[in-house]
């Protein structure tokens, strides 16, 4: 939240480039979500069953 809103300041108010950087960060989020684990509760249930 600190870094995101500070990007327009670093880019001297260039909001187009800001949006491209935001797009890249969302892409990282998307790629990470592919590897997101099951929740703790579900994991625990699976362990118990096995």
């Amino acid at each position: 939240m600190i870094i995101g809103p500070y990007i327009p300041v670093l880019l001297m108010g260039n909001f187009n480039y800001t949006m491209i950087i935001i797009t890249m960060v969302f892409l990282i989020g998307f790629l990470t979500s592919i590897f997101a684990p099951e929740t703790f509760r579900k994991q625990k249930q699976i362990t118990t069953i096995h």
Partner: protein
Amino acid sequence: MSVIVKRFYTRLIIASGIGWLLDAMNVILISYIVTLLIETWHLTITQSGIIILANSLGLLIGAILFGKVADMIGRTTAFIITLLIYSIFNGLSALSWNFIVFSLMRFFAGLGLGGELPVVASLVNEWGTESNRGPLVVLLESFWAYGVVTAGLISRYVLISIGWRLTLTILTALAIYALVIRFTIPESPRWLIMKGKIERAKGLIMKYGFNESMFKDTVEIKIKGTISDLFNKDLRKRTVIAWILWFSIAFGYYGFLLWLPTALLYRGFSIVKSFTFSLIMTIFSIIGYYIAIYLINSLGRRGTLMLLFLISVISALVFAYAYNISTLIISGSMLNLAMSGIWGGTIYAYTPELYPTSIRGVGTGSATALAR
């Protein structure tokens, strides 16, 4: 679910949700106030950034500090303290005479607000059972969307007319009202059990018509709640992934929303048009939440996150190159929809479920701190 339990959940969600709505309003309203201050105080983009940075720094420190405090002194006490801090400094910020004083007051207001958000999420989460925990947190989060839209409405129809000082004063009065309501919320039974206050927890569970077995999972795993525990071999991967997800959504959400009215102003629209377009786009936040509620039960947490992140990638890219009003509004609206769905609809339900009760506060607090 019995009538008494339903009634209790309604009260819990309304009491927590009203505060949540006010929080959202105050966070987002800064973006509109800064846009106004650019004109009234003739602020440069750097000075505007300092105000937003101060607010965000307060949110960061508050999230770290009060996540831990809530694990020590309890959820209800912690969020009453944080809301009090927020109310005082939000009120004082209305008296600011330059952007430095305003930034300082926003830092302290942010400190209270940043501390409050993870605490309330933990409290609602810990009153939930396995079957309703996700939907409860998502329901709470939907109030954030209403707050974002309310901030847009206030900015468009009130802020422009009565000015930012009076607007902040009214919000402080509302925050004090939320504080009063929150005295009626009971402590988390899971936190009480964790602290060995079994009888008090049992008393609350019985009082509100719950079955004791619904909270049985709380005592099954004992892990000491410290930051280093988040990196033990069982939780390491979860922590890293949670942190990246929170960072990504927070970066995009605040990077976009906190500058949205200013970005439109810089594209040549008037203040009134900037505020109007921002309002239209933020209305889609509400739709995003409800789509996410449906998706997390059909696609699951991970599937929902993947889909909504993908929509965010596409719509952010389109927004960057959109120059006609309709493309701008459609891409901005889709971005709002997806971001709200990720944040409120999914990630707030997902993160606490990644951790056992004893370090849930620390785990959620650390992830939300990364988001700051």
